[in-house]
């Protein structure tokens, strides 16, 4: 079986693990704690794919009907 990356599929948006600095700026922008991010499970295939661990925040660049492209953030939980 050929291996392929989940992210190559057109319906899977780009997921990236966020750096400390970027995360801080996002947290202060919305003045929230990490816990207030929407959540995503570590078992989620795309999280496995990018190798994020519990406590990481992933940034998702989604295609949007209304805004063209929209950023979304999700906290990885167990």
């Amino acid at each position, binding site marked *: 079986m050929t291996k392929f990356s989940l992210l190559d599929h057109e319906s899977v948006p780009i997921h990236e693990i966020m750096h400390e600095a970027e995360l801080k700026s996002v947290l202060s922008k919305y003045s*929230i704690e990490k816990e207030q*991010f929407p959540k995503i499970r570590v078992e989620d295939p795309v999280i496995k794919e990018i190798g994020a661990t519990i406590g990481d925040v992933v940034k998702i660049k989604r295609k949007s009907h209304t805004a063209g492209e929209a950023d*979304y953030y999700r906290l990885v939980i167990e």
Partner: protein
Amino acid sequence: MANVPPIPKRISAIKFGLMSPKEIRKMSATSIDTADTYDDDGFPIDMGLMDTKLGVIDPGLRCKTCHGRAGECPGHFGHINLVAPVIHVGFNKIIRKLLRASCRKCSRLLLDVPQKAHFLSQLTAIEEIGHRPDDVINEAYKEASKVKVCPYCGEEQLDIKFEKPTEYLEDGEKLTPTEIRGRFEGIPDEDIKVIGMDPNNARPEWMILTVLPVPPVTVRPSITLESGQRSEDDLTHKLVDIIRINYRFQENREAGAPQLIIEDLWELLQYHVTTFFDNSVSGIPPARHRSGRPLKTLSQRLKGKEGRFRGSLSGKRVNFSARTVISPDPNLSINEVGVPIPIARILTVPVNVTPRNIEQLRVFIRNSGVVHPGANYVFRPDGRRIKVTESNKEDLAEKIEYNWMVERQLNDGDTVLFNRQPSLHKMSIMAHSVKVLPDKTFRLNPAVCPPYNADFDGDEMNMHALQTEESRAEARILMQVQENILSPRFGGPIIGGIHDHISGLFILTRFEKKISKPNAYDLLRKTDVERVLPEPASFGENGEPYWTGKQIFSQLLPKGLNMGFSAQVCSHCETCKKEECPYDSYVVIEDGELIKGTIDEASIGAFKGKILERIIKQFGASQGARFVDNFTRLAIRAVMRSGLSFGIADEDIPKEASIQINEVLGKAEDDVQKLIQSFINKELEPLPGRTLDETIEMSIMQKLGKARDETGNIADSHMGLENPAVIMARSGARGSILNLTQMAACVGQQAVRGERIQRGYAGRTLPHFAKGDLGSDAHGFVKASYKSGLNPTEYFFHAIGGREGLVDTAVRTSQSGYLQRRLVNALQDLEAQYDLTVRDTRGVVVQFKFGEDGINPTKSDFSKPDAIRRIVSDVVNREVE
């Protein structure tokens, strides 16, 4: 969002169990032994049903348990020691299952050890994933009741029969509650776990009552009638019965009465306890009051629509509200609601007495009961409420001072909320200004029907009078009708012209109609625009001026409005000539003047009105509301002047047209026959992915559908825009061209589930046709028009199709209603914050930008940069692309 509220506390678990006799006695304040309530002096008797240890309801007395006064004391339970155990009706199902599943001698569950272990492990597994254990438990019961010989003591098991309401027969012998209780007591704790009960919280023998909890007096307060007589609550009556029988039972048993009498009394005790819990158990006559009214006992208080849950907790009745039938009044503004005088005289608004209004309020108080804006109540500074009556009104009018408060009757200009159920969106509740009117119905402008989804075939609506300044301000700013013309669902107007408004303006503005001066002024009579007519468009033979309908309509448009768009009547020509449209179907508005085009649904209709939308977005909600008020009045005048009626003669088509239609239908029928022939000869090529049968059906459907459309076109071509039905259909006022086609030309194929009608007899739909006939008329094609009349078979097929339509709508509304309810329940706590994020109550973000673009649909031009285009063309003074 600096202060995010802390994540709220969550209930981790709720535990339900049975009450043990021990627990009942422990929580009991006293044992109840006498059936009497009050002594001769009217004081509660000790150990009676109204014992002050159970709490107090009479003012002045103190509770003996908590020393609280009436109101402070929550009430305390008592108990009745039952002489003999009785069954609790609520547990009959479990009792029956358990009797069948346990041994009659050794009481053990009739399952062997490995089986028990199996079910127990399944239960723990299912509990871990959080599923309901019902299936496993029922399986365990089923397995156990199959066993005929006890695997532990070898006792043969007998058949248990349950007889309503509370009898158990073992091989025809009656089991007494004592015996049942004895068996249940013997079931070991480990066995109880197998059938899903927790032995610490629910031992099965607790389902057989030996002691009965007596609810506190606060639960069953007695009412003192005007005559000074006390009337006891239904529950108290029931408890009296129980105590009496309990006492008689004890006496008889101690006196060594015969077994027969004892059994009778036991049964009677069982009956009373049963009806105490539930007075609607099938199999026994409901306990009745002396008057013959069935008693309302415990489960009646909770159950059903008027029960505690649905009637008192989920929904309550509110004060300051009114409900009546609605009817239309086009002379009201869309922001107004006509309130009948009888309602206006009952609903009130509180007003604080100040130096500025004291004289006015005195007038209100003096008017009370005579003239309409009166006052119903006066509140002293200490909060005492005084009703304004004929005898004290002069007095009160003199007495009021600055810090008093007066409840004045509802009057013109008051803000009220108006609502029609089902409240499916925010526009189902809007704020209106009161206009007090005679008669007995609520009146509203027909233009506000669409958001409420109201019509006047007997609809009723509710009204709520707002009581505080804050609520009035909030309602005015957020909920007033004019603020809700644009729907956040699609960013367009949900309020607008309907029916005659559209036909009226269509007739008025189509082409260049000549309107004389008196007519022009008369058309504008009811509008609030300045009565200054522009330069006349033309002059008659004698030099008298004439205006066009477009000019008249332009009087309603604000200066500075520039638009260009296709009207509803637009026939979508291959190349649109826009401004040069020969059919007057391209609307051009320059600086608030209608230059070209016809005003119809696309301009001013509810859901579509482009002009209305533009006015609100460019000039604000007040201008929008004013525009609606004006154009509805103008439209009604216009349609009244020209007249618009529809009769059977309007469906007439010329002879040659009917001949043409018959030709088309005849040819279609021939084509269908040819198709059928080729199908029979097996010459038909199946469509890709279809069977031959499906192919022939589809081809026939397609042929007949086309034929119907063709007949429609023929009929349509003979009915011009002078035909009122065509005017209504084309302008979007009401009805469609399809409706017209069906009336004048051909009704067409009747369908069930999107297919031709196939059901009926074996191989045919009706006995009128040969078996296997695939022809058009044998499967529900209606050649006739409604006007010409349907033949009997056509009529029958039409009824079949019509019935399906009715059933469909009924099913769809209930299903989509439930779907919507679930969606609303899931989303109702989400809130768009000032930083444009959407968050739930815990502050967890759901969307980082509302709708991902942060745009409010009611403020944008359908998310297109139309505003920029408009600004540029306004500046350079010409259209830009």
